């Protein structure tokens, strides 16, 4: 396969970036998208150019680091996969691809396709945890949990924090991410004592990090590699409204 790539190149956080065009030749349809970038980078290195920086780690769709925009779609055209799970057979020979980093105020570009997603860590630090030590695993049914709640919590917990929801959202909102994190803990008994302050604090942290607001366009769930539903956003709205109205220690 031969492809024409338009790739965002930016030296560092402060530098001005621009789209640069490269030819990618000798690409096998069986390569993953990241392997294709590896091949292009080898070519760049042999000609003495800087290779294209992109984040990657597990290359099997669980670490959440590899996300890029391919022709304006987060993680590329294939549903329910991360960029590393995307294969070149998803594209046509001779196709032109626009490869860009996630664009959001909350995700500043560090270099080329690599963005700083530590805003997500700070949102988690605002409440995405259970404070008490849960100790070692207890007997399986010591704490009864309804099956449907367990399933729903598990579906939310599938979030890998890749940031595709933010990248795809027309408003660069992080609502799907926050709703998954708030949702998983609000459904389980261990999450109950801190349920209200978690919703309030994580939503505030999201706002402070400069992410936008949800306008119910559902672009996020369309690109989420873990197919997290926007039903969790409705759940988060419910959690936030209830906590705002009834949280005992809320400011008077």
């Amino acid at each position, binding site marked *: 396969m031969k492809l024409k790539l*338009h790739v*965002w190149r930016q030296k560092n956080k402060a530098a001005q970036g621009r*789209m640069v065009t490269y030819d990618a030749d000798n690409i096998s349809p069986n390569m993953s998208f990241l392997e294709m970038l590896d091949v292009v980078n080898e070519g760049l290195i042999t000609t003495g150019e800087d290779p294209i920086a992109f984040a990657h780690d597990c290359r099997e769709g669980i670490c959440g680091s590899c996300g890029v*925009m391919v*022709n*304006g*779609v987060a993680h590329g055209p294939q549903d329910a996969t991360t960029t590393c799970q995307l294969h070149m057979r998803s594209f046509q020979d001779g196709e032109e691809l*626009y490869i*860009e980093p996630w*664009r*959001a*105020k*909350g995700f500043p570009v560090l270099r080329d396709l690599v963005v700083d997603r530590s805003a997500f860590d700070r949102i988690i630090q605002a409440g995405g945890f259970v404070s008490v030590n849960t100790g070692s695993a207890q007997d399986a049914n010591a704490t009864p949990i309804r099956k449907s709640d367990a399933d729903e919590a598990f579906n939310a917990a599938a979030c890998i924090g890749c940031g595709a929801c933010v990248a*795809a959202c*027309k*408003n*660069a*909102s992080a*609502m799907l991410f926050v709703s998954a994190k708030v949702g998983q803990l609000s459904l389980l008994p261990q999450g109950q004592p801190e349920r209200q302050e978690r919703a309030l604090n994580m*939503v*505030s942290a*999201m*706002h402070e990090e*400069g*992410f*936008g*607001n*949800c*306008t*119910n*366009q*559902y*672009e996020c769930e*369309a*690109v989420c590699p873990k197919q997290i539903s*926007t*039903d969790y*956003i*409705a*759940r*988060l*709205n*419910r*959690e*936030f*409204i209830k906590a*705002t109205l009834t949280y005992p220690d*809320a*400011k*008077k």
Partner: protein
Amino acid sequence: MSWLKHAVRNPIGAKVLMAITGIMLTGFLVAHISGNLLIFVGPQAINAYAEGLRQFPAVLWAARAGLLVAFVTHIYFAAYVTMGNRAARPQPYAFSNTVQATLASRSMVLTGMVMLAFIIFHLAHFTWRITDSEISAMGEFDVYQMVIRGFRQPMVAGSYVIAMVAIGLHLSHGIASVFQTLGLNHPRYNRAVRFAGPAIGVGIALLFASIPLSIYLGLVK
């Protein structure tokens, strides 16, 4: 009250207020179109209805005040939310794409602004009666003749119909959004809500548009 101030500065709190005021404004539209459709019954019906409204000035002014508060609140928080959204993506994509967001959802700001411009014109046209000297000179309560006279003009009828397209789009995203924003969501009802929202929105717009269209086409004289 600082908890309330804090809540509405928040992305969800601001949208909850937009949802509540959106319900109020949609309720007004339903009441408004219910009265307007009397024009198809005849001159006496709609004139009697218009006069009937004025029999209760306290109720009328209370409703107008509530409507104004809802209207201003809705626009204020729409501006607040939109500015936050614009600021959240300072650098746009070189290749922008849309996977499943509807046209209605992507044009809420535009359709909202068209509606605002229309409402100002509509008030000037039929409430303050300052856009048309012939309407200004008419007697106080001949609503029927006023409407007929207004919509015989192609520019006026046309601009009303265009405004109704904007209202149809705005409501078709807005009504379903109310349920999502207020967290009124359950797999059992989600599909119904996502279908009924646009259906009700387009239905209201079609009913409104039927009046200028049928007058302009001479079906109502």
